[in-house]
C-alpha cells in the first residue's frame, strides 16, 4: 500500500526533501490524517480491537491449547449434555458438540477469518482498482463497457453474488475467498472511477498535461495516487463486511472440509441445534465475528473522517 500513497497535497514534496528549505507549514494529507486519528478515541478503540485480532490470529499456534480440528474432549460429550465453561478442567470455555476445545477453536477461527478477510479484500481491491483505473483513465467506450458490467453485478445482492460464485467454484475456503473478493470488485471499481473523474479537472493535472507528460504517466502517477483515499477507506470498511460475509457463507454450508473445522460461521451452524442446552456455542463465535467487524468499522470510519477535507481545516 505504501507505494500508492499520494504525494503532499500542498505540492511541497520536493521542498521537504531539500533540508535547506524550511517546511512551508502545509502537512501532507496522510500525515495530518494520522495525527488526527491518534487523537480520536473511536480510532484508538478500533485499532486496539484490530491489533488484538491480528495478534490472536498470528499467534494461534502458540495461544491455542489444542489444534483447530483436534477433538480432545470427545469422551465428555453426551447427546444431552455439552460441558460449558469451567465444567471440565483443562477446557476453559468448555467443549463443542464434537468434543473440540471451544477456546482453541475460537482462536483458530480468528486465523481463518483473517486469512479469508484479507485475501478476499485484496482480490476485490486489485480487481476493482484495475477496472476503475481503466474506466477512469481511458474514459470513452472502455469506461462505458466497464461501468455497464459493474451495474449488472451491482444489481445482484452481494451475498447472492458471492454464493453463486462459490457454487460455481465448489465448496471450500478458496472458493469463499474468491467469491467474496469478486463480489467486492464492482464497489471498488465504481468508487475509484468516480474519485478519478472528480480529480480530472484539478490544477495539478492541467500542469502535468502542460508539461507534456503522457496520458499513462498522468493517470498512474498523478491521478491514481490522489484518488485512492476513498478506496483505502472503503477497503478498511470492506474488511468488516468480508469477515461477516465469510462467516455467513460458511454458516450456509459453503465452507467445505470437515464439520469440526475451526471457522466462526461454521461453529454457528452446528450450534443451532444446541441453542437450548449450550448457548455459549453460538454466542462466543458470534461475538468474535461482531467484535472483529466492529474493530474494522471503527477504524475505517475514523479514517474516512480524518481524510475528509471538510474536517481537515480544524
Amino acid at each position, binding site marked *: 500500500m505504501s507505494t500508492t500513497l499520494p504525494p503532499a497535497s500542498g505540492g511541497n514534496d520536493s521542498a521537504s526533501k531539500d533540508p535547506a528549505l524550511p517546511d512551508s507549514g502545509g502537512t501532507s494529507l496522510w500525515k495530518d490524517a494520522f495525527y488526527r486519528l491518534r487523537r480520536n478515541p473511536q480510532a484508538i478503540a478500533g485499532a486496539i480491537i484490530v491489533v488484538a485480532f491480528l495478534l490472536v490470529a498470528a499467534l494461534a499456534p502458540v495461544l491455542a491449547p489444542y489444534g483447530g480440528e483436534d477433538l480432545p474432549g470427545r469422551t465428555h460429550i453426551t447427546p444431552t449434555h455439552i460441558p460449558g465453561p469451567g465444567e471440565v478442567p483443562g477446557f476453559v470455555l468448555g467443549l463443542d458438540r464434537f468434543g473440540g476445545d471451544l477456546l482453541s477453536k475460537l482462536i483458530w477461527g480468528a486465523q481463518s477469518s483473517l486469512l479469508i478477510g484479507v485475501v478476499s479484500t485484496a482480490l476485490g481491491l486489485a480487481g476493482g482498482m484495475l477496472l476503475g483505473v481503466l474506466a477512469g483513465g481511458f474514459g470513452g467506450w472502455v469506461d462505458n463497457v466497464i461501468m*455497464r*458490467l459493474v*451495474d*449488472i453485478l451491482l*444489481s*445482484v*445482492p*452481494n*451475498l*447472492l453474488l458471492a*454464493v*453463486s460464485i462459490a*457454487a*460455481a*467454484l*465448489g465448496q471450500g475456503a478458496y472458493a469463499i475467498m474468491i467469491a467474496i473478493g469478486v463480489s467486492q470488485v464492482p464497489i471498488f471499481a465504481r468508487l475509484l472511477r468516480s474519485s478519478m473523474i472528480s480529480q480530472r479537472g484539478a490544477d495539478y493535472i492541467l500542469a502535468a498535461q502542460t508539461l507534456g507528460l503522457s496520458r499513462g504517466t498522468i493517470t498512474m502517477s498523478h491521478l491514481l495516487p490522489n484518488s485512492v483515499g476513498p478506496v483505502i477507506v472503503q477497503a478498511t470498511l470492506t474488511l*468488516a463486511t468480508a469477515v*461477516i460475509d465469510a*462467516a*455467513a457463507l460458511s*454458516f*450456509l*454450508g*459453503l465452507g467445505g472440509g470437515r464439520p469440526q473445522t475451526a471457522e466462526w460461521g461454521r461453529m*454457528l451452524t452446528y*450450534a*443451532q441445534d444446541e*441453542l*437450548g442446552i449450550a*448457548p455459549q456455542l*453460538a*454466542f462466543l463465535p*458470534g*461475538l468474535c*465475528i*461482531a467484535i472483529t*467487524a*466492529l474493530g474494522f*468499522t*471503527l477504524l475505517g470510519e475514523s479514517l474516512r473522517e480524518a481524510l475528509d477535507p471538510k474536517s481537515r481545516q480544524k
Partner: protein
Amino acid sequence: MLRVIGKRLALLVPTLLGLSILLFLWVRSLPGGPATALLGDRATPEAVERINELYGFNRPLIEQYFIYMGKLLQGDFGTSLLTGRPVLEEFATRFPATLELTIVALIFAIGIGIPLGYLAAKHYGRWPDHGSVVLSLIGITIPVFFLAFILKWLFAIKIPIFPTDGRQNARINATHVTDFYVLDGLLTREWDASWDAFMHLILPGIALGTIPLAIIVRITRASVLEVQNADYVRTAKAKGLLERTIRNRFILRNAMLPVTTTIGLQLGLLISGAVLTETVFAFSGIGRFLRDAIFNLDYPVLQGFIIFIAILYSLINLIVDISYSIIDPRVRVQ
C-alpha cells in the same frame, strides 16, 4: 412523466440482457457442467450424454443461449431440480411469506429508525445522539444470523414469549386463502390464526430489520443535521411557528429525500438477510428456499431468482425516484 418511466424501463433492457448472458455462462461453468449438476457426481457417462442430448447442452453455446433466452421471454424460468416444479410457481407460493416478513422488518426499521435519527440530530452531541450512534454502529456490525440466534435464545427459549420457528403453529388448523398468513386469518375471521402468524413474524422481523434500522438512523441523523440549520428553518422559528409544524413540514419533509433513497436501496440487504434469518427461524419463505437451492446447487432456482431480483431492484429504484417528486415537488423526475 410517462415518457421518463418508459425511458427508464428501456434502460433496463441492456442490463438484463447482460445479466442473462452472465447467468447463462455461470451455469456452463458449474463444476462438471449442467448435466452433472442435474444428475449428481456419480452419474454414468451414458446418463450425462442422454441429459446433454435432452436439454441440448451439446449444441453450440450461442444456439443454447438463444433457446434459453427465448424461454425466459416466454416466462419459462425452468424447473427446480429439487422439487421438480416450475421455478416461478415455487417463488409464487413462497413469496407471500417473505413479503410479510419484509414488511414487518421495514415497519420496525422505519418506525424506530426515523424518530431515533431525528432525536439524535435534535440533541446533537448529547446522550440521545451518542446512544443512537453507538446503537447504529452495533446494528451494522452484528451479523444477522448471530442476532437471530440471540433473539431466539432470549425471547423464545429463555423467556418463551415468541415461538421459536416456523410460520404458524401446526395445531392451529387455519384456512389459507392468499398465503399471507396474517391476512388470511383476518379474511376468514380466524383471529387466533392471524395473531399466531403475526407472533411468528416478530423475532425474524427484528433480526431482518436491524441492519436497515441502523442505516436509516444514520442517514436520518445526518440529513436532519444538515437541514435543521437551513435558513428556512430559522425563518420558520422566527415566525414563531409551532415546534410540531417546524418539525413535520420543514425539517422532516426536507430531510426525507436521502432517507427514501436509502430505504429503496435496502432490498439487496433484505434478500441476503432473509436467506440467513429464515434459515435460523426455519421460516419457509423465499430465503429458506434459496438456502436449499444454494446447498443443492439448484441452478434454475438461483438463476431465476437473480433475474427476478434484478428486475425488482430496478423497479424499486424507479419508484423511489418517482416518489421524490411526491415528497418534494421541487424535484422533477428527469
